[in-house]
């Protein structure tokens, strides 16, 4: 069964399985795919299953229907096609059974081929239509170290991918103390989150009271001790 993925600004809003012979797209609530946006006509476009093929037809909409960057009246959909309607993009995904049914294999993109969600062309079309895109992203977070030891360091944002803590001049967070090594610990921002690593030296590193000799992933409100320094880790939203 083919799938239609409704996206807006790269974010997936909903997936639809193509489980009947025809579907309609538009602002009116009677459509299969309802897009509540002024750039979209009441009944904007339809897609019909014809044998193993899927045919997209523009229903003489005000702002038109685009496939990839071409304005279309009627179009035979291929796996990976981006159907642009107003500010929304509907990605057409064929499935295994469609592929077997499909006769002209050469013209179709095999399913396990990688395709790209086309956002640039979408943006260009938006510019043409003079519709301002809205931001709808998951808020990005940044880690903060909050010093609670009277060192006066206060709250320090972890704005670098790699933050070094220690005595060295090049440290992002400069600490003092007789036994403090040039670099006592590092905090790296990785795909999985913030990781605290002990680098070496005679200054003990503790997280929530437990000595850390290698690496540990940091969670919100972990308490970290490094020699006489004591601080808490937490993450906050980056102000947009």
């Amino acid at each position, binding site marked *: 069964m083919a799938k239609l*993925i409704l996206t807006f600004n790269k974010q997936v809003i909903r997936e639809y399985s193509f489980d009947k012979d025809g579907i309609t797209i538009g602002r009116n609530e009677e459509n299969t795919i309802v897009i509540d946006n002024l750039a979209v006509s009441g009944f904007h476009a339809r897609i019909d299953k014809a044998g193993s093929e899927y045919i997209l037809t523009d229903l003489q909409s005000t702002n038109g229907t685009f496939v990839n960057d071409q304005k279309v009246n009627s179009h035979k959909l291929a796996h990976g096609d981006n159907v642009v309607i107003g500010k929304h993009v509907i*990605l057409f995904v064929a499935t295994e059974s469609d592929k077997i049914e499909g006769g002209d294999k050469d013209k179709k993109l095999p*399913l396990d081929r*990688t395709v*790209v969600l086309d956002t640039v062309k979408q943006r260009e079309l938006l510019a043409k239509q003079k519709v301002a895109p809205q931001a709808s992203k998951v808020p990005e977070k940044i880690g903060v170290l909050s010093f609670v030891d009277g060192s006066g360091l206060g709250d320090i944002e972890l704005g670098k*991918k790699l933050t070094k803590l220690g005595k060295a001049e090049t440290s992002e967070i400069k600490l003092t103390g*007789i036994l403090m090594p040039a670099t006592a610990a590092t905090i790296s*921002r990785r795909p999985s989150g913030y990781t605290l690593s002990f680098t*070496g030296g005679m200054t003990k590193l503790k997280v929530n009271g437990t000595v850390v000799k290698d*690496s540990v992933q940091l969670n919100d409100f972990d308490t970290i001790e490094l020699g006489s320094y004591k601080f808490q880790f937490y993450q906050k939203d980056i102000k947009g």
Partner: protein
Amino acid sequence: MEVRASGISDVGLQREGNEDAFSIQSSLGLYIVADGMGGHLAGEVASRVAVEIIGKSFRRWLETEMPEDELFGYPDSSLSRIGNYVLSSVRIANRVIYEMATQYEQYSGMGTTVVILFVTPSLIIAANVGDSRIYMVREGRIERMSKDHTIVSEHVEMGVMTEEEAAKSPLRHILTRNLGSADHVDPEVFEIVPSGSDRFILCTDGLTDLANDDEILEIAQGGQDPELLCRDLVDLALQRGGHDNTTVVSVFLQDAARRPRRGIVTTAGGIVADAFVFIDRLRKKVGL
């Protein structure tokens, strides 16, 4: 620090051409893997262009210590200077592939993923665009040092899909970013400090489609030969159908002169130096 690396690219059992490319520049410590896409030979062209341009521009900037503000595009303040070299080299490769794809019909629609690893004794940089991956094996654990740019991985990040569902989803091959589809790209770049005997695996989805992280960890922990590790991982993909091109580059670190647990001499030296600083401060304080 001793670094040993090896790479294998295999066309697989179902594809006619190999659209993957990789490069190992041991003298520099730079390792790149790319997975091209696009009809006819365009995918092959895109991955090779990416590997070539990233390798060359990065080397030139590193050797000439290029100031950050003279790089291609704005530097990222969250990165070190070398991290910005990696970032910028990916952006320049993206621009070239994008221009080729828009100006020449035979390259229309071409693109590529890329993963890059740069290794020095004090800093490791990992960068990626698309769904090729970098794994780090450290202290018996496996960790991804790359972030997939796919719809499903965004779903996982938002918490609406599990890793297991993502691995099976029909949407798993839909990228949200690659090199070549837009005139600007934001790669992921990560910086970490190396530790003793880290092992890194750079690979294309020909492997990760058919093997999960735990299986890769198990294979990566056995043996001491990076070439054998590549062979074993590629063989696993082939045994399981080899439906796509599969490329694996493995990089083994060995801390040859692993610091002998901070000799008493250096520590004592450090303390003496500290003592002088301390005395200095005292003097100022009491107005000597």
